[in-house]
């Protein structure tokens, strides 16, 4: 199939890549751009490991085509730290023990960021609902919720 050239703005940097029209944003980010912090857990939109922010909204990047992201602002986990300083959510995830195997972590943190950007002081229920699309098999979510609530409390 003929490839199309798409312009993507990922973590503030411009990329131009040629992709098949059916290529997912996830495969494009991981394999064409080479940012492997975004994870593939199911490729079906069920697990949330591939969550990125597109124009600030959390998106399962396995359910979005790369061509659909043409010209859009995409944030992956690699774009969260600023000048080498971790984002408060990243800090809190470490401090509160919210990271175990780490495979769901990038997507989980980005879902949390999308929530807090829109709703800086969520209730615990709102936090749980906001990350319900991000499966974590290690933690039982307790410490993830605590970490997000801690950031919300200080934000």
């Amino acid at each position, binding site marked *: 199939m003929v490839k199309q050239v798409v312009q993507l703005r990922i973590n503030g940097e411009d990329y131009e890549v040629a992709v098949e029209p059916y290529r997912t944003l996830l495969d494009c980010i*991981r*394999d064409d751009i*080479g*940012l*492997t*912090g*975004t*994870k*593939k*857990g*199911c*490729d*079906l939109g*069920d*697990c949330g*490991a591939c969550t990125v922010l597109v124009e600030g909204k959390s998106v399962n990047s396995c359910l979005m085509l790369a061509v659909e992201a043409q010209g859009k602002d995409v944030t*992956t*986990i*690699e774009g*969260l*730290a600023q000048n080498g300083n*971790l984002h408060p959510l*990243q800090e809190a*995830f*470490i*401090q509160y*023990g919210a*990271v*175990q*195997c*780490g*495979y*769901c*972590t*990038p997507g989980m*943190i980005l879902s949390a960021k999308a929530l807090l950007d829109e709703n800086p002081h969520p209730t615990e229920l709102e*936090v*749980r*609902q906001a*990350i*319900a*699309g*991000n*499966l*974590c*098999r*290690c*933690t*039982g*979510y*307790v*410490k*993830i*919720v605590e970490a997000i609530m801690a950031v919300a409390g200080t934000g």
Partner: protein
Amino acid sequence: MAFSVVGKGLPRIDGASKVRGGAVFGADVKLPGMLIGVFLPSPHAHARIRHIDTYRAEGLPGVKGVVTAQDAPSLRYCTPAYGPSLCDRTFMARSKVRYFGEPVAAVAAVDEETAREALSLIAVEYEEIPAAFTIPDALLPDAPLVHEELLSYQGVGREARGNIYLQRSAARGDVSRGFTESDFVFEHTFATPMVHQSYVEPHAMVAAVDDAGRATVWTTTQAPFNIRSDLATILQMPLSQIRVVPLEVGGGFGGKLFTTLEPICLLLARKARRPVRMVMSREEEFLIARPRAAVTARLKTGVKRDGTLVAREGEFYFDTGAYQGAPVSFGVRFGLGPYRIPNAKADAYGVYTNKVSAGYFRAPGAPQVTFASESQMDIIARELGIDPWEVRWKNAWEEGDESVTGERMGRIGLKKTLEEVRRRGMWRADREVGRGRGLACGQWYTGGGATSACVTIYEDGTVGLLTGAIDITGSRTGLVQILAEELGVAPERIVVPVPDTDTIPWTGETSGSRITYGGGAAVLQAARDVKGQILGLVAEKLEVSAEDLELGGGRVYVKGSREKSLSLGEVALAAQGTKVGALLGWGVVGRLSPAPVFATQVAEVQVDAETGQVEVLKLGGAQDVGFAVNPLSVAGQMEGGMAQGMGYGIMEAMIFFRGKVENPNFADGKVPTAADVPSMATAIVEEPSDGPLGVRGVGEMPIVPTAAAIANAIHDAAGVRIRELPVTPERVVAAVKEKRG
């Protein structure tokens, strides 16, 4: 003894790389010229393979290699590290397929699309034959045999017959006399389903072969040395020609203990003369990875009027699927519960069926049999009108008690965990309408496999720790804490690069909650070794006796005189110019005796009797961890284990139709989300073991009693007893209807 580093809830040392997205998992490895490999799954549960034609697939542009079982020597293998070594397994189906999804052929191509297209061009001629899908099917006298040649396999036991490949038994006292002497005898059957570990990271690996024929395999695994030996056996390669590089494990829970696609991936790389990456799709995970075995348990228990156990007999049938691997012996070891039973008998059977091959999942065997045993304890308590807590307290093991397998308890914390759930108010009598509370105890053990560790001091004072122990629970952080404590350095001054099978001596797999126990012992040994060298060198330099020296703050001091000191960096540098050369401590620990572990959990649920919907409102657990090296990490393990136990209790099951998994994804094969799991309380009990710092294994225990506690709570709330997992709304509604008549 006062500690400064161990016993503290330090954040994980791998946290920063993981929150940045920098940690490297299997699918993140990319090599120049790398191909993508995929396998052809069997479309039948039981069929003879008449012919495989790969000609058209090989001719497809972009295809660089096609392999079938014919590309490797014909042999059956078994992983030697595991119990009864019945060699029934082939790395790919050869003359017949025994389960739906079993790999039959594989392709490596320039991209996944091409590789999958090539699969569709492989023509396989099958002859379907009758299959045995369930335990009752498989035990029929004229049942189709999953392995017709079982009796000729290497390692087969005398008990093997039909589809039963393994039997394990233990007994003490005289159960028939025990039942006669009992005031009441209870007999029930319980059933649990196959369940996938559902780690979020699918199996992923890359294989490459260099010009000299030496192979490197990067893979997500809990057992790199087992993968190496399996590859050597299967492909008949010298062990020394294989390097296995373990990567971060994105959730394992026992599901990454065994060799899966690695031999196929390496064969493809050898044939294509290019590196090959294989990553399982989520559906393939459900088709061919190694889930928890389904178990049918029959329990017969005799008690005195006051609840004292007199006799217990258990029969446990493990559905292993197409190949051995179900944790049958654990059925015997844990099936009767952690109780004093003068007359006891346990028999466990491993049964072949035409389904995916079962394996290990967090405390393998224990959640299944504990669901049975703890559900029945609850039934007994309620029938006798005794508090469920009391009946357990009355019978619970104490020091000196002996299990049916003859294991004699040393100091154990079972009763302390029972005390703790009551003291903390997790277990109490009050209750609201429609709500219920259930209690369950559970047991597990701390495995004692071998571990190698090596400690070195860099000339800037950094301490390097190498260990073959794969970290799946945060064990690296715990080992760093143990090392930091022993050497008197800050944990931040320790680096822990992950070695591969070339660079660290043999180490057993990460299983049996053993790393902080056996690995901790190895690290302590290595730390003491290097400490001796440091003290010796400094004593010479400062012309004092080694006994007069102490370590702290990354320095070596003369006791009582803080001025006279050398930093560890200075010592390492000094060593380079002496006959010492480099500071290097080794610790190799062999098999340690297993330390028992116990937990008590309480579930609080709300049941809607009309819809059958069960909401778990609270989970609380008390667990004996011996000594909590890192309480934050321990709590995280307990919470994660209870959440999985909750999934096992009310949500999770692999649903089969004629051997085919009908729900091979997270939409239909549900696991708990953040919106499903309740608030959880954890209580740490510390009854020291004989191991390093008194630790006991932590990771597996918490999943063991949860499902039973929830089922018991459902009975408390709705008056119905569900004896089959998961407790779905359909089952609750049916039971409520039946009860109402």
